[in-house]
């Protein structure tokens, strides 16, 4: 036990909460109160400004408890629709024993929130929650100890309810968390950390909560980066090259400079025009004449797959078991296929946006960023500034999907604002958003497998070319297998466009290939595709997930193509076992695919907010239809030709299945796993298999456009 310095009367730090607090909070009907850090709430907290680049051990870094019982939970995670603003308070309330209504979330502010590397990889619940829950458990234990001391009883003789510590034998004797803390740091800590609660002790975790930020979002009050009111800010528009593979030769912006009120700033190749009206800045940008070198790269969205398959790179073998040759000898049939998948954009409806405001040597940047701390690092490093002089705030983020892990707009806004000596707002146009995106990789996959007449896989030779390995695991029980990944040599990239994270990167393409190939084998054997999978599965979790899916769907076995238009896919992602079954109608005249219904089944361990998880699964099904059926980036060399939503086809209302049912297996006694990404990995495979089942057309390339569906029809010439 460390020495206590938290005596309410002797507290050294004065509470900085004042009467204005009411203005900062918005209480919501849903239960959880929300406060995002778009204004300046620094007076609510007492935190050191510079933090180490790791999740802090000091529980004070996560929470501050005020005298009125309000718990400010200040975490570096960001809210982009995936729901931590709702699910984190559920866990905090349970571990602390406070009412969920007393919790306010303060997120994504590098000056006020505990460090977090970034909101990605479905890690908020399966990883970050452990730290947060442990912090709350320790805070609770310390508060109980302090209360017991004040009540002059032993800690074991207390009970806690709604932030109040009672003498268990005499409930008249009580003391509140708020009285103990009064908004100050809790200076005491425990050497031996208390255990977090068992699932049987939860009150809020496992219950469904509506989005805590819904009221702000339906009224238009929710502030995204471009909505932050900053006095005197101007719009910046940035000059972009026609291709990623060219260099600026010369530029003439004299016409722009002549325009009334327009300012042009330049930092190397970063050239921006500024005006208080975005329309004028846009017009001024259009007057700039710039010459570039020629992009001589020929690869485009058609030749990309040959390019990937023939490129030189490094190979890495994984999952090596047995000998492929032996597996081939055991097989009665060898099945080979090759799958392709084009580039996909993230296409959040909020484009990358940043507002930068300098005050002396310090800069504050509001940015639509999945990683405010990452943006802070990048800006500080590029500009040679100490970290504490850079504050990055991620207000509500209008969709990320991995695309806002990269935040070039934040650095650009900071540089432009420094030159302009005034606050600058940079809102990427939709055209810039497509041009500047780090796409989901184009992918090529080759599979060669052997099967016996009894329907057992004896050999599995899986090769993935120059994209992420995620999701390339075999998952089926195969005695002789090898997974080979080809990747670019350092310094010689193979993908002609920048690529990166995209809601389960790699797993979407890999699962499409593996699960399509599974159905191809099942069809060759004349076996029902679900039955074929079960014959080759030994993973009990996967089997349980499949069975729950079949049950929910009311699926009856049939060999494909059955004409019913039902297809499935399964896999594991972010620690979760997932299977999806869809039913589609295919118009054999046009090749159009109409989803009718979908069932998602997942084992995600402990589920914090079932409603939130179900919504994530629905989002995965819907977004997944986009990449599977329509989304594709047209490009040539480094020129990204797709520029807006008139040519990049997102899923539309008319595509939405009549029902999307989600089954979450009851695993509350197990560790929580990811929920934001898993179900989307199945959509390519499930739809490909449903299309085949409907009309016999096997499509090997995503997106599975009507033309490609027609071209695969058995009768097509």
């Amino acid at each position: 036990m460390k020495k206590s310095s938290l005596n309410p009367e002797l507290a050294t730090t004065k509470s900085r909460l004042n009467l204005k607090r009411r203005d900062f909070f918005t209480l919501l009907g849903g239960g959880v109160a929300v406060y995002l850090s778009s204004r300046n709430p620094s007076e609510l907290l007492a935190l050191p400004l510079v933090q180490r680049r790791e999740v802090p051990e000091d529980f004070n870094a996560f929470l501050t408890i005020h005298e009125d019982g309000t718990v400010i939970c200040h975490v570096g995670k960001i809210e982009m629709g995936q729901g931590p603003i709702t699910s984190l308070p559920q866990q905090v309330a349970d571990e602390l024993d406070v009412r969920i209504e007393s919790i306010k979330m303060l997120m994504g502010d590098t000056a006020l929130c505990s460090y977090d590397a970034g909101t990605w990889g479905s890690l908020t619940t399966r990883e970050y929650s452990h730290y947060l829950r442990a912090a709350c458990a320790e805070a609770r234990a310390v508060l109980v100890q302090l209360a017991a001391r004040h009540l002059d009883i032993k800690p074991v003789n207390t009970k806690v309810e709604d932030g109040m510590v009672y003498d268990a034998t005499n409930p008249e004797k009580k003391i509140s968390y708020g009285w103990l803390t009064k908004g100050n740091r809790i200076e005491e800590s425990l050497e031996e950390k208390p255990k977090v609660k068992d699932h049987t002790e939860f009150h809020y975790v496992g219950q469904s909560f509506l989005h805590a930020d819904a009221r702000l979002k339906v009224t238009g009050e929710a502030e995204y980066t471009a909505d932050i009111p900053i006095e005197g800010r101007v719009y910046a528009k940035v000059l972009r090259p026609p291709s990623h593979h060219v260099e600026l030769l010369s530029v003439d912006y004299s016409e722009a400079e002549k325009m009334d009120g327009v300012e042009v700033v330049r930092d190397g190749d970063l050239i921006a025009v500024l005006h208080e009206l975005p329309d004028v800045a846009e017009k001024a940008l259009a007057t700039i004449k710039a010459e570039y070198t020629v992009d001589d790269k020929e690869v485009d969205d058609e030749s990309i797959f040959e390019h990937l398959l023939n490129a030189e790179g490094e190979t890495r073998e994984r999952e090596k078991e047995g000998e492929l040759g032996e597996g081939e000898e055991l097989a009665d049939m060898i099945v080979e296929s090759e799958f392709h998948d084009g580039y996909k954009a993230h296409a959040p409806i909020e484009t990358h946006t940043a507002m930068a405001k300098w005050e002396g040597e310090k800069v504050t940047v509001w940015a639509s960023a999945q990683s405010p701390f990452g943006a802070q690092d990048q800006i500080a490093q590029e500009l040679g500034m100490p970290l504490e002089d850079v504050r990055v705030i991620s207000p509500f983020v209008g969709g990320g999907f991995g695309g806002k892990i990269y935040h070039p707009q934040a650095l650009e806004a900071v540089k432009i604002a420094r030159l302009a000596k005034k606050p600058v707002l940079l809102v990427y146009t939709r055209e810039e958003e497509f041009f500047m995106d780090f796409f989901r990789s184009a992918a090529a996959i080759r599979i060669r497998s052997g099967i016996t007449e009894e329907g057992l896989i004896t050999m599995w030779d899986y090769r993935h070319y120059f994209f992420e390995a995620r999701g390339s695991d075999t998952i089926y029980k195969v005695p002789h297998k090898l997974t080979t990944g080809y990747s670019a040599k350092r310094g010689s990239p193979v993908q002609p466009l920048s690529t990166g994270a995209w809601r389960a990167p790699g797993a979407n393409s890999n699962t499409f290939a593996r699960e399509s190939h599974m159905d191809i084998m099942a069809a060759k054997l004349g076996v029902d595709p679900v039955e074929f999978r079960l014959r080759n599965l030994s993973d009990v979790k996967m089997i349980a997930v499949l069975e729950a899916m079949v049950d929910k769907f009311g699926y009856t076995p049939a060999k494909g193509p059955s004409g019913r238009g039902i297809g499935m896919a399964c896999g594991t992602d972010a620690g979760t076992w997932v299977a999806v079954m869809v039913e589609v109608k295919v118009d054999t005249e046009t090749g159009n695919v109409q989803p009718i219904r979908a069932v998602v089944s997942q084992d995600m361990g402990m589920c914090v907010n079932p409603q939130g998880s179900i919504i994530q699964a629905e989002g995965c099904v819907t977004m997944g239809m986009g990449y599977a059926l329509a989304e594709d980036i047209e490009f040539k060399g480094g020129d990204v030709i797709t520029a807006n939503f008139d040519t990049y086809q997102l899923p539309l209302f008319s595509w939405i299945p009549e029902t999307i049912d989600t089954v979450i297996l009851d695993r509350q006694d197990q560790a929580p796993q990811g929920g934001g990404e898993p179900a989307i990995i199945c959509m390519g495979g499930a739809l490909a298999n449903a299309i085949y089942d409907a009309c016999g057309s096997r499509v090997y390339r995503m997106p599975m456009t009507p033309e490609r569906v027609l071209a695969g029809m058995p009768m097509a010439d």
Partner: protein
Amino acid sequence: MEKLIRFNLNGKDREITIDPTLSLLWVLRDQFALSGTKYGCGIGVCGACTILLDNQAIRSCTYQVSDVMDRKVVTIEGLASNGELHPVQKAFMEKDALQCGYCTPGMIMNATSLLLSNPEPSRQEVIDAMQDNLCRCGAHIRIIEAIQSAGQEMKKVNQP
């Protein structure tokens, strides 16, 4: 050349002297501090900037500010009355019909326009009316449900 533009905005008569060719979207956001109307594509294909002009849903990014002269504009901020949310707003909350929330104002404005002309839309009619509003998070299935439920609610309220 600047021009005086008079119009009714969220129930109040307003005027502004400004270049009449400026984009309505940015004028609403910047000159009237109505940031609930969002930029999404700039060419009228995503619907994030949808507002009501004389009760019809329009894409404010494709309109000039002069287009609203002597007309009635309602943005997401003008939908609730006296702190009471509009039935469409309530239904979006109750059905959890949103995720990141960025497309939500445009969705709600378009849905409101639909329900004004067709208070009891079928599922297909909702789909047809909402077809060109884009949502990247995939809240569509709940949005359809919310709009139909709001229609029912509005009908109840309007019945004597």
